[in-house]
């Protein structure tokens, strides 16, 4: 297994058909007749669309690569091609090594069987041999934390327990290539941390990892390289920070082009004393000005502000309700500004302001913009981290 390239896709195209297929023999005859008269392959028929369009990349052995993109961009389709579940319409896919996919937690679990029985069932489905599972059984149960319930039928498990057991089995595969699709969000916080750590150890052991997730922090932590998909096309392939920046910018551009929501975010600005500013000293006071506009009906709004650092960690989050503002009343079609004054005790770096306009009873999000505005914080003192605690030496 000396091949340097573990995974490769070369000019892969995949088209799907919208709507229903012919599900009965009654429709087959006319369909076959139609197919016989067509050449097939290249062009799009009525109702078809490209799920993947000219996707090419190479992944070296031992690399950890993230695949990110908006919902429907083709991430899961791409993964399914790598696992061999789907064949491309055009193009080639090469896989060198034992591949295991963590696409669904608890795949194959049967409700009537006990946890123990399901561990074996799930394990063989994922590609482990029964001997291997027997060897690792205690470890798997230990990791899941479900030792006392392992002989209970899984239909009695809570959804969290279900997910933990499933993830635990999958985490103990020893593949050459590991493909993970959005499964790190199962379980409670403690379990999630364990999950990320396990993924990291698998990556460190030399396995090639392909990771699809919306959890930007996890992506950032695990993968130095990322691939950005947009509507089936590979838009960018490079360092994770670069790709994430593009992703955020695209997200911002998209949301401002949305068709009339009930309440719309019109403008977000960071302002100093004299007006709009993008640079601030650590500790300076800045005003965050948020302007919103109601749609055809009056609304009651709660504003949630999140400030993210360049690693997309949430440095600070507050809502208008927490500030004692109460529901912000908007008449139909009216505009309104909300201003929040902040003391920017932040470490030097780039920060993004994310604003979400929510219904006052918190049942609905009207409009959310991930990177509504960006500002930079500088500091004379060399400070590193999340916040600036204004250190002064009092004794030496």
């Amino acid at each position, binding site marked *: 297994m000396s091949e340097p390239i573990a995974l490769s896709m070369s000019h892969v195209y995949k088209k799907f058909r919208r709507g229903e*297929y012919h*599900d009965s023999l009654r429709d087959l005859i006319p369909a076959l007749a139609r197919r016989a008269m067509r050449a097939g392959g290249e062009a799009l028929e009525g109702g078809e669309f490209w799920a993947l369009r000219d996707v090419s990349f190479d992944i070296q052995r031992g690399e950890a690569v993230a695949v990110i993109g908006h919902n429907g961009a083709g991430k899961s389709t791409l993964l399914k091609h790598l696992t061999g579940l789907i064949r491309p319409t055009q193009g080639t896919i090469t896989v060198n090594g034992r591949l295991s996919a963590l696409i669904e937690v608890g*795949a194959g679990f049967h409700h009537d*069987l006990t946890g123990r029985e399901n561990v074996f069932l799930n394990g063989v*489905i994922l*590609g482990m041999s029964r001997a291997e599972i027997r060897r690792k059984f205690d470890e798997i149960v230990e990791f899941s934390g479900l030792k006392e319930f392992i002989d209970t039928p899984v239909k009695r498990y809570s959804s969290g327990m279900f997910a933990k057991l499933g993830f635990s089995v999958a985490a103990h595969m020893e593949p050459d290539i590991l493909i993970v699709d959005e499964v790190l969000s199962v379980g409670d916080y403690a379990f999630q941390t364990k999950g990320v750590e396990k993924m990291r150890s698998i990556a460190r052991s030399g396995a090639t990892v392909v990771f699809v997730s919306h959890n930007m922090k996890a992506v950032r932590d695990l993968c130095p390289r990322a691939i950005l998909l947009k509507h089936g096309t590979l838009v960018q392939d490079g360092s994770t920070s670069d790709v994430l920046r593009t992703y955020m910018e695209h997200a911002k551009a998209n949301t401002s082009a949305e068709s009339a929501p009930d309440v719309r975010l019109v403008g977000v600005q960071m302002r100093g004393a004299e007006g709009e500013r993008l640079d601030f000293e650590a500790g300076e006071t800045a005003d965050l000005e948020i302007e919103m506009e109601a749609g055809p009906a009056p609304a009651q709004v709660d504003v949630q502000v999140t400030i993210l650092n360049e690693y997309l960690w949430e440095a600070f989050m507050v809502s208008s309700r927490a500030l004692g503002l109460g529901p912000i009343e908007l008449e139909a079609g009216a505009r309104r500004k909300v201003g929040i004054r902040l003391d920017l005790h932040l470490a030097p770096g780039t920060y993004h302001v994310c604003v979400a306009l929510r219904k006052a009873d918190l049942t609905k999000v009207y409009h959310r913009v991930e990177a509504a505005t960006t500002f930079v914080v500088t500091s004379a003192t060399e400070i590193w981290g999340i916040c600036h605690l204004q250190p002064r030496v009092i004794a030496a």
Partner: protein
Amino acid sequence: MSHVTKLLEYKGLLYMLAWRDVRVRYKQSVMGILWAIFMPMLIVGAGALVRFILAEFTQTKVSAEDLASVMVRAVVWAFFMSAIRFGTNSLVTNSNLVARMAFPKEGFPIAAVLSSLFDFAVAAVVVILVLAAIGALSGAQALWALPLLVVMVVQAVGFALLMSSLNLFFRDVKYLVEIVLTYAIFFTPVIFSSDMLGKWEPLLLLNPVAPLIEVIADVVVGHRMPPLYWLAYSTVTSVLLLVGGYALFKQLEAKFAERI
């Protein structure tokens, strides 16, 4: 064939799927494993009833050998019905796994046949004990049944591969299969034996299952070796069915995940 080597890598999966089907079928049920005996006994009962009625009309007697023959045929036929029925639905029933996981999907129809084979084994043991008790077994000749059972499984797997792949794309296949299975009792020698058909006996050959059942019954309780011609015919059709069914299955497998 490389497909077979790949499948053998997953033999643990085959075992687990078959095991799962059997386990789930009998968990939380009162009668449990007795169902495996109950079904064939119902068919035996129906066969015996028809024989007795026929005997009344034709003024002949029903011999113990006739009844023994019906028992053997019923058990084999119950296997085929179960294997074909579960086999046809095996992919659709496991649609979640077919759509999301990548592994050789023939595991499903094969596991369906294996779980039906388990039921068959239970019923067969009971039948053999009864036959031995009443002295109807053909002695050492009955051991020929073992290679014939292999042919039986091969044929069932062939059917299951063929039907399951078709059923995935055309969901009415399972209804067609049900209808055929219901009426099959008329053109399969279960409650009658092929020699009762007289000059129409060769027509039975159109049903690939028929000569096999006839041959197995002959060998186990018939005290005679079956005609070599029928033996060869059964074996050849089974192998063709397996090879053809498997080839079609693997050809269509590429589209399973998208179409299920």
